[in-house]
């Protein structure tokens, strides 16, 4: 394996920056969920990369936990988006103004 740890970490930084850009700019709720997925995945990539180079098995264990938690988060997030879509007939987050009711 000729790839160094720093290559993986730099790819992960790039993915994190793209995710931050998506969270800051996009107003579509589903696209913001995409951006959150990218950020979570860059964190997972860091965990597995450091676990490979140290080497230690606990990084992979933590990455597995993180993947499972992200799955639960996406399920709840999509359910929230569906409820908000039924209420406002839109998925633009600028329209989700009132939390009452």
């Amino acid at each position, binding site marked *: *394996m000729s790839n160094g740890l720093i290559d993986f970490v730099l*790819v992960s930084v790039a993915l994190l920056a793209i995710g931050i850009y998506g969270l800051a700019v996009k107003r579509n709720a589903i696209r913001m969920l995409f951006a959150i997925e990218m950020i979570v995945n860059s964190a997972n990539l860091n965990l597995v990369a450091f676990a490979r180079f140290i080497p230690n098995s606990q990084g*992979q264990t933590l990455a597995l936990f993180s993947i499972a938690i992200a799955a639960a988060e996406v399920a709840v997030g999509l359910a929230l988006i*569906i409820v908000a879509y039924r209420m406002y007939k839109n998925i633009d987050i600028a329209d989700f103004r009132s939390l009452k009711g």
Partner: protein
Amino acid sequence: MVDSIFLAVSVLTIGSAIAALEIRSLIYGSIALMLTLSGIAGFFLLLDSPFVAMFQLSVYVGAIAVLILFTVMLVRRELIFNKIEDPRRRYAGIGLMIIVMLGIGTIIIGSGLKTMETSVTTVDYRKIGEDFLTYYSPALIVMALILTSSVIGALALARREDVTNEQRTD
């Protein structure tokens, strides 16, 4: 130095991540997100952790991406292609992205990570299962409870009938 497989996988991952955010149609965007997640699974394979890679493929590409695709199909057609964003906010976002990339990138390049040696020993996946069942077993049980409660919560939220006809006035 990086090899060609790493270069190809990283170009696929970063390119499809940008495409997922920038393609006009949300359906193609979610397919591009699927490619990004598969690229991350490829990185896990390059890092000699096939167990996590298979988990990533089955959970992310198999379950989450399909769930997102179905949710996109539930949304009205013109909202899928609708793209509303402030151009000034967009330039500010691109600036923020470049600042984050350059800032953290220079810190990482300047740190001692470059001298990290590649170890020949890889982690055996049996060790992961052993970890799960011994040291992390309370965390595993708590995670099972979290998954159950989130599934129940998602079902309860998505099956609510009383919000269907409510029209907001403000």
